């Protein structure tokens, strides 16, 4: 029963968050965004106290239920495991193995140290939610769009315009490689070795596992009923049941309840673990002095190293190099790097398809983080979608009015390459697209107009760069490493029409 409830919730959460990531047409309600906000790493990075406290309480009450229901990467592994069962002739048998405590905490510490040193890429790569997001956006979104385009072709041939075609092309090869590697590596582990990723690598799993050791409800042996038949152990995808010793490592138990289902004697159950009676529930923990020392040393160095290295690591490239553009609301490269885990939700949701996972634009430490490119489009003046969906606070929410004054970069005009100036034919494509008229057309020769720019009112939307017909781009946006506030443009002189005549 418990397992059925768990599977039901997991299916619901997993399906919805996956569809939310895939939903380029914005058919699903915006409220589904909460599924990304309740992920632990985004909650911590956005300092969402409510969610952090809720998740800690959830773990302290029910154990690692998060890993079996809320985390899409966790459920993905269960799905793979389930499919694997269909293909296997002989049933997979898991055998208890010891916890790799040193490895698990090393990962947590390394990720933490790197993050504090201004190298957030490790956290982004290992965070299960973000890794899952990248996998969906890079690998499955193009497939989803191809399916949509197939439906569109069928429906449109019957004059039904419910569907519209979308761009199924791959946004970034490096992101596709990362997505495929994630899919294959974690998929392989899940196929062969159950929840190995969750038990050894996943930093979220390690932290929640620590809390779960003290949770109110736990899977517990009834020593009187158990005959050590090992059925529960053989079914434990987390390798955490030692049926001989009748012990469970609750730091690895993801409360999947497979053991309870498998037991024929009701000797294992999920219940309140702090009985006041004399009934002995769990054997007291043997204090592991070595582990304590390791943890305290590494935690200390975590604090000490960044302090000494501060100032050395800035992550921003030379000023004379092209500065990458960060999305409006992200405040600039530093803020983005301090908060982004590269889940690529913004990449998927951007209606203009201009957010791309960075390769080397931000340096290695910003690998996979979103950057704005204007090859396929430009940032719509009134659009604030990326700032609304970002669960980590890397892209802070903006109102439309705030966005109108958020300068992510500045306009640069190279008149020598401009078609209107050089070829002396009319163009004006840049001014046509400029929402603030930071580029505007002024009289040049006779009827001919040429562009002129005003950086102070430019917000860096890239409309001019996108549409400039010159191959080498006579006009482009240079990113602001730190976003600035643009000045408000001056309005034109108001006029009234006298309704006198037609003029001809």
């Amino acid at each position, binding site marked *: 029963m418990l397992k059925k409830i768990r599977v039901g919730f997991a299916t619901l959460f997993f399906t919805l968050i996956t569809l939310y990531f895939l939903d380029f047409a914005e058919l699903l309600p915006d409220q589904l965004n909460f599924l990304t906000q309740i992920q632990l790493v985004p909650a911590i990075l956005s300092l969402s106290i409510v969610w952090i406290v809720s998740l800690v309480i959830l773990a302290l009450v029910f154990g690692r239920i998060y890993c079996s229901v809320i985390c899409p990467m966790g459920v993905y592994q269960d799905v793979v495991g389930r499919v694997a069962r269909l293909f296997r002739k002989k049933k997979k048998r898991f055998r208890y193995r010891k916890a790799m405590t040193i490895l698990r905490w090393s990962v947590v510490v390394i990720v933490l140290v790197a993050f504090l040193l201004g190298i957030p890429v490790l956290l982004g790569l290992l965070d299960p939610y973000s890794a899952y997001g990248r996998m969906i956006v890079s690998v499955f979104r193009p497939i989803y769009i191809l399916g949509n385009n197939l439906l569109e072709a069928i429906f449109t041939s019957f004059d039904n315009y419910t569907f519209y075609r979308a761009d199924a092309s791959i946004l970034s090869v490096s992101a596709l490689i990362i997505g495929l590697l994630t899919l294959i590596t974690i998929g392989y582990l899940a196929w062969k070795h159950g929840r190995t990723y969750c038990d050894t690598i996943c930093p979220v799993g390690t932290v929640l596992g620590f809390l779960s050791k003290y949770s109110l409800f736990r899977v517990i042996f009834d020593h009187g009923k158990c005959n050590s038949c090992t059925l529960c152990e053989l079914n434990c995808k987390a390798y955490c049941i030692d049926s001989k010793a009748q012990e469970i490592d609750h730091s690895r138990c993801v409360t999947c309840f497979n053991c309870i289902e498998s037991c024929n004697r009701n000797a294992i159950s999920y219940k309140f673990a702090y009985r006041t009676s004399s009934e002995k529930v769990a054997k007291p923990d043997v204090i592991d002095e070595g582990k304590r020392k390791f943890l305290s040393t590494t935690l200390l160095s975590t604090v000490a190293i960044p302090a000494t290295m501060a100032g050395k690591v800035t992550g921003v490239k030379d000023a004379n190099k092209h500065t990458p553009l960060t999305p409006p609301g992200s405040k600039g490269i530093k803020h983005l790097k301090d908060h982004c885990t590269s889940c690529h939700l913004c990449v998927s949701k951007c*209606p203009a398809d201009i957010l791309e996972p960075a390769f080397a634009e931000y340096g290695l430490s910003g690998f996979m983080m979103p950057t704005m490119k204007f090859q396929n489009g430009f940032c719509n003046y009134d659009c604030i979608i990326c700032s609304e969906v970002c669960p980590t606070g890397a892209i802070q929410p903006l109102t439309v009015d705030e966005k109108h004054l958020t300068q992510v970069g500045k306009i640069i005009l190279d008149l020598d390459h401009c078609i209107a100036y050089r070829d002396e034919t009319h163009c004006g494509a840049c001014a046509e697209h400029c929402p603030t008229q930071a580029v505007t057309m002024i009289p040049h020769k006779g009827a001919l107009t040429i562009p002129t720019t005003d950086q102070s009112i430019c917000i860096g939307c890239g409309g001019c760069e996108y549409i400039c017909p010159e191959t080498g781009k006579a006009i482009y946006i240079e990113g602001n490493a730190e976003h600035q506030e643009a000045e408000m443009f001056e309005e034109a002189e108001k006029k009234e*029409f006298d309704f006198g005549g037609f003029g001809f």
Partner: protein
Amino acid sequence: MMDRRKFLSALAVAGVAATIKVNGAMHLMSQSLDNSTSGTPVDLVAVMGGEPGAMFKRALAEMGGMNKFVKPGYKVCIKPNIGWDKSPEFAANANPELIGEIVKQCFDAGASEVLVFDNTCDDWRQCYQNSGIEKAAKDAGANMIPGHQESYYRNVSIPKGKILKEAKIHQAILDSDIWINVPVLKHHGGARLSISMKNHMGIVWDRRFFHSNDLQQCIADICTLDKKPVLNVVDAYRTLKSNGPRGKSESDVVLTKSLFMSQDIVAVDTAAAKFFSQIEEMPLDHVEHLANGQSLNIGTMNLESLNVKRIKL
């Protein structure tokens, strides 16, 4: 089905009557009667002082009614300017009420299907929605179809073009029986004015070619396309006088409550350009695509040679 049509057309007639009556311009009715009896075809209609739908109906009546253009069973494509993610007050797009009325008139004349699209500059979903055109068109029974992907366009040769020899044209234009061109009168930084001829850039996929190869000539060239609009309806209910074609704020907009209609695309644009000059100076020779169009024999800039109706509601 027929009952609804009949009811709708009766409503339309009543609407025209009511509009005329409300404005107390009964002489206009006799004018149009005179016209239809004398049989002199009207080349260009200019209407001022009404609401978008009413002005359209009045102009259409002068031109001989929608039945002249739309035959029963026709698949009609309407191509408004929906270039920008702007609400109607900003006059960056054609007026939604006008589009709704045109769709309605097409169905009343027996159209089997009406399609509406534009190759927008801003994100097409936002443009369709915030221009108000999607709702107006759908409410009147039309299909809003996308134009944001190259695969919707087919290559067509433009033999009469001077520079533009071929272009990818939206399949809705190519596959419909007729199409109606509905620009909005706007200032334009590059082409100087954006009216009916400039609105053709929204039926084309690759606009960059235009900009990099003499915009003013390419605009005229695309208008030599074999499949010409049966009607050009210039929306000047609001006119974007400055900072076009997008506009910065409502200060760029003038409420002009006018509409121009003609089958002659150069003539209707010339008329609209002269009208525009009353608000902001715009010498006709600056709007070079007009003269370029005349040279390609797609219309005339000489309004004197035409039978022009000027109507104030």
